[in-house]
């Protein structure tokens, strides 16, 4: 991993649809070098996946998302890992993190509607061994996701010429 790799990662994180040719002109590499480096980063698991930031609310799919906080009794020898890995397997769990503070695990769960989310929590998550407590918070509106603002912003006006 060198400075060029970091530069490639920053470019791809912002827009993974750029072609190797486009990235090459920005980084002073050849397109072939760009491809080799990107493949190496994929193979090493540094690049996990290419994805898209979508404003689902605007797309009108009506999905419900909620943040679920879990208090968990850690296991001897394994801590939180085994239960976290078990929870990660659920398709409904989009993000899972171990937190400091008043609770332990934080889940981002999505579903078609409220019923689906609450059924998932009450049937699959809450009854799981070692989970002491759950708190479910419905996301009302998303203003920013992964560094991307989801609301309209006014373009700032600039003079056509300045020195």
């Amino acid at each position: 991993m060198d400075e060029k790799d970091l530069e490639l990662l920053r470019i791809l994180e912002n827009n993974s649809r750029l072609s190797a040719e486009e990235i090459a002109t920005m980084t002073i590499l050849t397109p072939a070098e760009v491809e080799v480096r990107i493949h190496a980063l994929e193979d090493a698991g540094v690049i996990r996946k290419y994805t898209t930031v979508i404003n689902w609310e605007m797309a009108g799919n009506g999905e419900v998302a909620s943040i679920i906080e879990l208090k968990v009794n850690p296991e001897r020898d394994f801590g939180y890992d085994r239960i976290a890995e078990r929870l990660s397997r659920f398709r409904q769990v989009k993000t899972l993190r171990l937190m400091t503070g008043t609770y332990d695990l934080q889940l981002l769960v999505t579903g078609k509607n409220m019923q689906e989310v609450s059924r998932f929590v009450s049937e699959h998550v809450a009854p799981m061994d070692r989970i002491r407590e759950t708190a479910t918070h419905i996301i009302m509106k998303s203003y920013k996701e992964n560094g991307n603002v989801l609301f309209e912003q006014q373009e700032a006006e600039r003079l056509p010429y300045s020195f």
Partner: protein
Amino acid sequence: MRNFISERANGIPPSGIRKFFDLALTIEDVISLGVGEPDFRTPWNICESSIYSIEQGVTSYTPNKGLPALRETLSIYLKQHYNLPYNSDDEIIITSGVSEALDIAIRAIVDPGDEVLIAQPSYVSYAPCVTLAGGQPVPVECTEADSFKLNPDRLQEKITKKTKALMINFPNNPTGAVMNRKDLEAIADVIIDNDLLLITDEVYAELTYEGSHVAAGTVSDLWQRTITLNGFSKAYAMTGWRVGYLCAPKELCEAALKIHQYVMLCAPVMGQIGALEAVRSAEEDKNTMVNEYRLRRNMFVSGLNRIGLPTHVPPGAFYAFPSVKGTGLSDTEFAERLLKEQRVAVVPGSVFGAGGDYHLRCAYAVSRKQLTEALGRMETFLNGL
């Protein structure tokens, strides 16, 4: 009625760029590469601290030199980042942009008849500021063959008994040229041998893409005869805030302060609060912007060379300075026709003085998408010549 306009005001030539400005405003769908300012918004933490301070009623004058907290923070910043030692009490003045810093620096040192050497191509206000102070601006050309650096021999040639000071600006607007330590040492010898003062405008210091910026005040024994100018506009996307600063040894700083206190009193307090936040906690935002400029530079400069406009790779600032010599058009003709025929606005290099003719200043502080579109339009234009 008498003609009330002073000879000094009359002595300043009208801006050559005005007609482009007016023309560009009448054309729809122009991509402007003519803008010498970042296309980013000011980082929000900077805006927020300024807004909060207004809500708290912080709306009064500040000390002439500027808020003590800002001067102290800057003093530490300059030492840490550039190894520039300036005392916050009596060697730093916060100004209304580098423009004001430039004006008071020149007025503090120039007497009528004094010659001030200006490394050109240069920012458009240097020569008029010298004229307004009663001095005589003398251009020293930085040539493309020297990668637009200031050559010590060319500098020596222009020195007369009347020469008092030299003005430089690296990283340079409009060429993007940078002087490394060795380059600066070479001109330091000439400056010291001829007992000149150096005014160095380093407003693009943070926008250095290869290696790190060398402050002229840290080279040889230049510090005691150097006035360093810098500001927040370019690095932190704060052009409209109008905050800059002047740093110089105590005696020089005091002279500049006398002028500053009468013409400006102090820089706007809300701007100073924003600047304080910028130095304290906008390093990450600044780095993100600088990284983006670097990518755009690489992409845009390789594009210019590909379409047939030879362009040296600028190691600093956010300007590309392609040559149009091969097209048979002058820079002004090229810029005017490019604007009318392909709706791309660039600045003719001759606006920036000696060494600028047959070049264009293209600011790449616009989105990559716009740069790609501009390159396409420029290619179409070139193919139609």
